[in-house]
């Protein structure tokens, strides 16, 4: 029996997403990630616990409002840092993440990342769009962070969705004990995963962890003949060398026996800077100057061609349908 009252932290339930899996989907973003990629565009999903994001531009002024200051239990020595009549940031040291300020803020200048949901609540939200899944061949996608950080919660959601006949897709980083994958996979229809770098050293530098476990798990996934989509986030100057892409190709045709539905090469977009600031997390790519669109576009297309010479079903971007 699935425990529908089981709770977990969800940062967002986004309806009508169209890039993560086939058709029109509802995407559930779960909190917590084992990796810490330099280019992550969902930094609000990295830490496992709820936290408050600060958007000073939206603050309407302490003189007119100040509701947050009254709400914060840290009192006089409030955990909220103010400047020029506005809330600018949170002193994460003295903040207990009680979330009172975000609840009190009328202007969304303080917002909560990570709300407690029961499995039932998530599934109810997913069920809202069943007619859209049916017409478009869509379903639900669990994403994050990595949904497997809260794997029992995620499993319960997947199981319950399958009960309702909904197509399930799991986006995971695969930095997890293989045993968990064995438990979760029976409730998954499609797996999406990243290969960020083939060089273990570089992988560690860019993501904070070694890639050995990840590659092992991906190989196991392919061996189980799970429908698998692999994504390569193409980050200029980081992993876009032909050498690295060829190493990836060799891994796919060798270790995975090319058992992949599609390999998608995704362009780097400087998204999420605002979110980094709101969370008080330094952004590793702040100074990074992405090349002109024409240049990276051409580069991605040529890397896709390179993969294709290995017989790999590679595409640029995420909006073309896997064949077969």
């Amino acid at each position, binding site marked *: 029996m699935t425990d529908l009252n089981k709770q977990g932290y969800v940062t967002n339930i986004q*309806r009508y997403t169209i890039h993560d899996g086939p058709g*029109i989907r509802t995407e559930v973003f779960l909190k917590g990630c084992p990796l810490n990629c330099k280019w992550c565009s969902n930094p609000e999903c990295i830490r496992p616990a709820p936290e408050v994001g600060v958007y000073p531009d939206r603050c309407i002024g302490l003189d007119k409002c100040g509701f947050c200051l009254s709400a914060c239990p840290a009192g006089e020595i409030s955990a909220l840092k103010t400047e020029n009549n506005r809330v600018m940031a949170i002193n994460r040291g003295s903040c207990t993440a009680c979330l009172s300020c975000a609840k009190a803020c009328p202007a969304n200048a303080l917002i909560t990342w990570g709300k407690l949901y029961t499995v039932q609540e998530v599934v109810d939200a997913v069920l809202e769009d069943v007619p859209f899944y049916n017409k478009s061949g869509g379903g639900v996608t669990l994403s994050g962070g990595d949904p497997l950080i809260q794997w029992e919660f995620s499993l319960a959601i997947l199981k319950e969705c399958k009960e309702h006949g909904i197509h399930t897709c799991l986006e995971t980083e695969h930095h997890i004990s293989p045993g968990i994958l064995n438990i979760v996979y029976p409730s998954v229809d499609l797996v999406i995963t990243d290969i960020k770098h083939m060089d273990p050293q570089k992988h560690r530098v860019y993501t904070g962890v070694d890639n050995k476990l990840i590659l092992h798990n991906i190989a196991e996934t392919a061996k189980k003949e799970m429908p698998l989509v692999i994504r390569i986030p193409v980050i200029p100057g980081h992993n876009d060398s032909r050498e690295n892409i060829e190493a990836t190709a060799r891994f796919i045709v060798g270790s995975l026996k090319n058992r992949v539905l599609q390999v998608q090469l995704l362009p780097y977009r400087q998204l999420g800077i605002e979110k980094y600031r709101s969370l008080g997390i330094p952004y590793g790519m702040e100074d990074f100057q992405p090349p002109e669109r024409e240049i990276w576009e051409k580069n991605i297309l040529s890397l896709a061609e390179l993969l294709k010479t290995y017989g790999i079903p590679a595409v640029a971007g995420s909006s073309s349908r896997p064949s077969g």
Partner: protein
Amino acid sequence: MTLQSARKEKPVGITPFDREWPVSDGHMGKNTSPFPRVNRFINRVLEGEFTVDHQRASLVTEAYQKYEREPQVIKCALALANVLDNVEISITEDELIAGEMAAPMKAAPIFPEHSFSWVMDEMKNHPWHKRLHDRYYISKHSAKKLREIESFWKGKSIDEVVISEMNEDELKGTNIGRGFYLLNLYMYGGIGHLQANYEKLFARGFYGLREEVLEKLESLDKHEDPAGAKENFYRAELITIEAAIRYFQRYAALAVKIAEKEKTPLRKQELNIIADNCRWVSTNPPRTFFEALQLLYLATTIILIETNGHSVSIGRFDQFMEPFYRRDIESGEATKEDIQELIELYFIKHLWWTKLRDRLTVIANSGRGMGGDSITLGGVDREGNDATTDLTFMCLDAIAHTRSGVPWVAVRWHEQTPWELKVKTANVIRIGTGQPKVFNDQAAIPASLRAGRTLEDSRNYHVVGCVEIDSGGKEYGWHDAAYFNIAKILELAINDGRCIGCGEHCDRWENCGEMGKRLGPQTGKLAEFSSFDRVLEAYDRQMEYWVDLMIRGIEIMDRVHQRLKPLPYLSTLIDDCTEKGIDVSAGGARYNFTGPQAVGVGTTADGMAAIKQLIFEEKKVTAEGLLNALENNWVGDEPLYALVNSDKIHHYGNDDDYADELAKFATDTYCRHVENRPNCRGGKYLPGVYSVSANTALGLTQWASADGRVALEPVSDCLGPVHTWAGSHDTKGPSAIAKSVTKLDHIRAANGTLLNWKFSPSCVTGETGRDNLIALIDVYFDRRGMHSQFNIVSRETLENAIKNPEEYRYLLVRVAGYSAFFVELSKPLQYDIMGRTELSFD
């Protein structure tokens, strides 16, 4: 190929059904047609300026003076004849289909019998060439000619008579008073919003129509027509038919004359064909597609010359033109390419038509493509079978090729619509010109049945103008009778019948607020309401009071139109006017409706939700607190302003029953008070729920509102969720919007509904983007949504267009019901379109 086998094959246009065009490339003038003549034609039309022309006004005035003592219907017929016989005509280079609207290409004729004082006022005090948008030029000569007739029309035009016949109560809420329901379209202009019976015209020709009238006249029983009204009506019909015949023949003669001087043999030959076509169809039924198009174009143009109405629609072009198409292809008379080129040239000819609107109307309905000349494609036939033809695809290709915003194309979808047609529709939508709009047979047919049309007529519906369902050829629907701001009703309901923001700045201050009076009935103060239900009761009572007054005003207008402006020419083309001997304006048509629309659904729903949640449930705010905040336009109440605009409040458009049920209540209350009331033409009222762009004009007369609007900001558009200057109230994306909007009863809103979508290009690119768009429309339609239209354009593009209008001269966007050049729109409307939530999924 036999007839049978030709029919069994899948319909197809001249390009493959899944031919793709670049996404979000909605610019005109890019030579996108495969036919060089069409591209030349488009560019030539684009180059010229819009002008105002006096000829029609002068000729009509001349006739009114000369025939002063004639019965009104005869006078009107003779006035039309005087115009058709004497106005200057021309045929321009590259044209194959001749005809003009009693004025040169892109010139607006003037209709002094409808309204004239504003024309003179604006000519003097607000010159049209100095307008920020909807600009027109006028020559010194034309201006002089218009001044000459000014004194004749004093007190005689329909608008002046209507206003003089309305009492203080009937005026106080209208555009002449406080401005929260707008009657201006039919006060200053003609009715339009109809389709002529082209099938009948094509079957009988003008001689056939004349024959019918003559028979009726001969068999007329004088005892049944003691005052001679019917006899006069028939005589007037005959005068207009004969004038129409002569108008066609003038074009024939002109074509011959130009041909004689023409040097290039090819063009000479073309001009002779134009002459032959015009001559033949001046009296006879057309034999070929080409002839039928000539008849269609010029016969419609004469309707536009007779009266100042817009949205004179074409109807189901892919149905009634299909027999000509099939015959031509089978006989070898024309190739598919020939027909395609003709369709495209015909589409561009719609750019000829323009009508001058007063400066207040153009704030609400800006963009000069005010023809409202809609074409309806696809759908089911009278028996309920799929009606898709080759022409369905060819017209969609023509839209992709010409990208000129005209005609306004609607595609009907039903449960058996071929996948190929859905793909073609989606591909043309994705170009981003806002064309075509998509209608749902599953909602429109039941709505039409509910209105009282027969099953066959309901299945055969077409779309007139922007939004409205019409049975075509047998209906006078007064579809655009009024725009009624229901958000103002909520305001009066929470403020005891007084306006919020009442003060000296108001035009009505002296006979209202200053006298201690209130605008509406006294329905209680918010602070005294014991529960939220009392708010809804007050809303209901205010609604009843104001709908009563609106209908009284509309009825007065209707009677004045009947008295002063009979339409004998149009009457020959609408069933059963000739049969009954009654003019179309006076109830001669088979179906007679009046359709006023509710505006501001989202604004009302979110306002109600904020009041319910904050005052009655959470008790976070007091009634006085809220009313004060509104009176002060939120100044000093910034936290409350932020809060009502935040997702902490239930908002319509998020698939949240709390707010969606309030939206349903708000619209149902309007519909309940409007529906089934009789009108003075023997028909009844049909409510609609959409704004077109009247939401900006209605916003300009309303102070701050509880949903988080500041004073004068537009109210919400059509069925869309609220977006205020503080942000969009819908945060859950398109599927949630589709579900919220379809919780309303579209079938009840039998005059029509509309939802505007705005997508960023990235979310509809590729095959998956296309298929997801189709799936979205399918689900919206399965849930009985009636009508959707789409903008595929990024906010960035619109921002750039505002900054550098020169570079974006030909950028087309969907306004609502119609597409227009973005840089030509009024500023409030530009910002309103930009503010509609952009659905982007990167």
